[in-house]
């Protein structure tokens, strides 16, 4: 088979697959289509570097936004440490690829090594997800948000100080036996993530960046596949049930512990993967890129796309990334600050519009929520009559905005003083609705 035939046969297969998907899964179809067009272009004509680099950023942003939405939109917990998970993936995946590339003398574009790094990055981030998930079992709302923020900062500080040249020198200056010195040196070398300057892990050259973009698209599809399938299963119902009313969910026999941990772990794993993609596109991988501000940037994407709307997250992540790129070229000097101001104002307005109890009537009248998602549903998927909007298969697109969510979140702290499964529930939020007995 020559190259052309092979290409067409692959295309044909992908084509039939795409048709099958499009029946039920619109977002897969669109992303697949975009990916195919991109691939054709990348292969047919050498595409501009800036285009490939932009798409690379978009793929990372989409994975991050969708995985954060899983926690914020569906579990109903605010995570301000998503960039921390990403950092774990970026550094550990990047470290692995550095070691492997050096050890095997391989090319930095070796796909096999990339996949191994993706796996390691995801696993390590998932382990951190377990740690934060455990916090989520005991804490809720503001407190959990602070813990995730603290987690992100800890990760950043640890990686930014991860250069141990001084420690190695100090150990070498001692009178320890040589093998112990070597042992410590090896360990510290393994833990060395470049410190302040960052990790100079292997990355794709610009001309090959399209390969990373295609892998990014495949990872988006994988992310959607996992998260959407979870959401459209009994596990997904359990997760949204916990979001809507944790106490009732427990009374229905739902293992809140298991589900919360699971959501944090899965979300962290995908953030870790996005981190590995990031490490393959950026040099050096610097811990200062993964600060609190980056977590907020992802959160903005999620909020503007609509909490609880996967399609919204995909669209807003893409648009915001493109807009950022555009603005950073167009706005120079002092004007660049207006971008941050703009996002801050938009964030506040969107939240107030979507959540203010006083605007309920306005909301119902305008019905703008998930405008894009709705347009999508309207155009592509669903019958236009109202009952189909509420068709339960699509119901995971709904965002909790009612007071009831307050009821869930107002109980911030669940303490277990006895150390057993006692259910002393600390009330910190103070419920606003007088319905409680």
């Amino acid at each position, binding site marked *: 088979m020559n190259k052309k035939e092979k290409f067409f046969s692959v295309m044909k297969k992908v084509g039939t697959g795409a048709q099958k998907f499009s029946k039920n899964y619109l977002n897969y179809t669109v992303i697949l289509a975009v990916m195919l*067009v991109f691939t054709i272009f990348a292969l047919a004509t050498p595409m501009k570097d800036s285009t490939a680099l932009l798409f690379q950023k978009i793929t990372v942003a989409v994975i991050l936004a969708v995985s954060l939405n899983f926690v914020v939109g569906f579990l109903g917990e605010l995570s301000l440490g998503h960039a921390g998970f990403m950092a774990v993936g970026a550094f550990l995946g990047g470290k692995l690829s550095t070691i492997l590339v050096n050890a095997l003398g391989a090319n930095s574009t070796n796909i096999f090594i990339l996949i191994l790094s993706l796996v390691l990055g995801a696993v390590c981030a998932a382990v951190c997800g377990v740690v934060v998930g455990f916090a989520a079992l005991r804490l809720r709302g503001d407190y959990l948000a602070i813990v995730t923020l603290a987690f992100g900062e800890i990760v950043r500080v640890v990686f930014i100080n991860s250069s141990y040249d001084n420690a190695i020198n100090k150990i070498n200056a001692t009178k320890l036996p040589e093998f112990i010195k070597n042992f410590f040196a090896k360990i510290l070398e393994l833990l060395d993530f470049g410190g302040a300057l960052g990790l100079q892990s292997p990355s794709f050259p610009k001309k090959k960046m399209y390969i990373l973009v295609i892998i990014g698209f495949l990872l988006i599809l994988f992310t959607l596949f996992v998260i959407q399938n979870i959401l459209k299963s009994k596990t997904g119902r359990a997760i949204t049930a916990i979001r809507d009313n944790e106490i009732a969910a427990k009374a229905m026999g739902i293992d809140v512990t298991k589900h919360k941990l699971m959501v944090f772990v899965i979300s962290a794993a995908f953030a870790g993967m996005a981190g590995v993609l*990031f490490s393959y596109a950026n040099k050096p991988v610097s811990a200062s890129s993964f600060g609190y501000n980056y977590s907020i940037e992802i959160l903005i994407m999620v909020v503007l796309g609509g909490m609880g709307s996967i399609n919204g997250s995909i669209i807003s992540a893409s648009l915001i990334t493109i807009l950022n790129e555009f603005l950073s070229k167009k706005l*120079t000097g002092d004007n*660049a600050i207006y971008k941050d101001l703009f996002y801050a104002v938009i964030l506040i307005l969107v939240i107030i519009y979507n959540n203010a109890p006083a605007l309920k009537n306005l909301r119902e009248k305008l019905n703008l929520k998930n405008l894009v998602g709705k347009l999508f549903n309207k155009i592509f998927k669903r019958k236009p009559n109202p009952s189909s909007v509420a068709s339960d298969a699509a119901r995971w697109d709904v965002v909790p905005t009612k007071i009831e969510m307050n009821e869930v979140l107002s109980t911030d702290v669940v303490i277990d003083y006895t150390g057993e499964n006692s259910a002393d529930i600390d009330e910190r939020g103070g419920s606003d609705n007088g319905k409680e007995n």
Partner: protein
Amino acid sequence: MKLKRVFAIVMTIVLCFGMVAVLASCGNNEVNYAENNTKIKVGVSGPLTGGAAMYGIAVKNSAQLAIDEINAKGGVNGVMLELVAADDKHDATLVSTTYTTLYEGGCQLFLGTVTTKPGIQFKDYATEDGIFYLTPSASGDDIPYADGGFQMCFTDSNQGTASAKLFNENYAGKKIGIFYKADDDYSVGIKNNFVKNLDASFGKIEEASFTGDTSLFDSQISMLKDCDVIFMPIYYTPASQFMKQGANIVKADAVYFGCDGFDGIDAVDGFAIDTIPQEVSYLSHFDSTATEGPAADYIKAYKEAYPNEPLNQFGAAAYDCVYAMVAALEKSGEEITATMSAQDMSEILLAQFKGGFVFNGVTGKCEGENKSTITWNADGTVDKEAVKYVVKEAGANG
């Protein structure tokens, strides 16, 4: 129902075609110099906003100043120059944008990045495209390389070594302290080399560090208060905060000794340097307090052109960079046109810079009215003389 599905397919196709159009408009990878360029474009990526903006702005202004001067004198063999500055906010992840903006925008001469962290990514890209750059101020040890990355400033390790040498000669027997920023590659790089090259006779060196945006240095001051000489491989803002907060606690006859990051410390907003009793000096390749000689001429020209903008050694180095590249082009004797490709121009420059090119500039040690002599090593590092400048003598005057 069926109609909707058809509509869905149509919509998807439209979307794809839209993307095709977008991608097509991006064109292919070849930069069309003949169409875009009427002048030689000089590109620089630096922080024009954010915390490090003062360095990027100084570089941008100084490069513009040099270009204006060169153009006024008739350009490079009659071809005019034009500056393109892109904002990387001192963020390595934005280099993908700034580099492509510059390269695809048709730049032919590159000043690289202003700071080190973005510079590494820039170096990668430049290597891939076969681009020569002469960075004014990205001082990291990873920045220079033999096949196209040259520096106008000293590398961090060279600065550390030079400072240590100076300490060995001048401060023997004194108690040395170091105050550095642990999460800054510039600071850590200099500090490590400084410690490595310091004579063993100094005994224990007190090390105090800080991270992030911290501006409270109580603990660090307490640790360093008994030192005779405090080495500060940091930028001037935290240094000035340390000096203000420690004015009464640190020994009054102590010396604050900095690197090129100190340049401009006497002009920090709200810092009355005369009120502190300690001596402040630094080792640098540029004297921003010069009142005569080439450095002073540059400062005068800069202040006339940009009266309210930051002025520091970054800018002076950028000013030299532009002149150096132009001088190299002119010296090569090749025909220079505005539509040459960046690669062609890089080839000419690289041959010059690797071939013992000598440049006379405002940075480095200027004797009287004579400009300094600057040469480059084959590995891309610069060879010029650093000078110790005393910003302020010991004793409070305020």
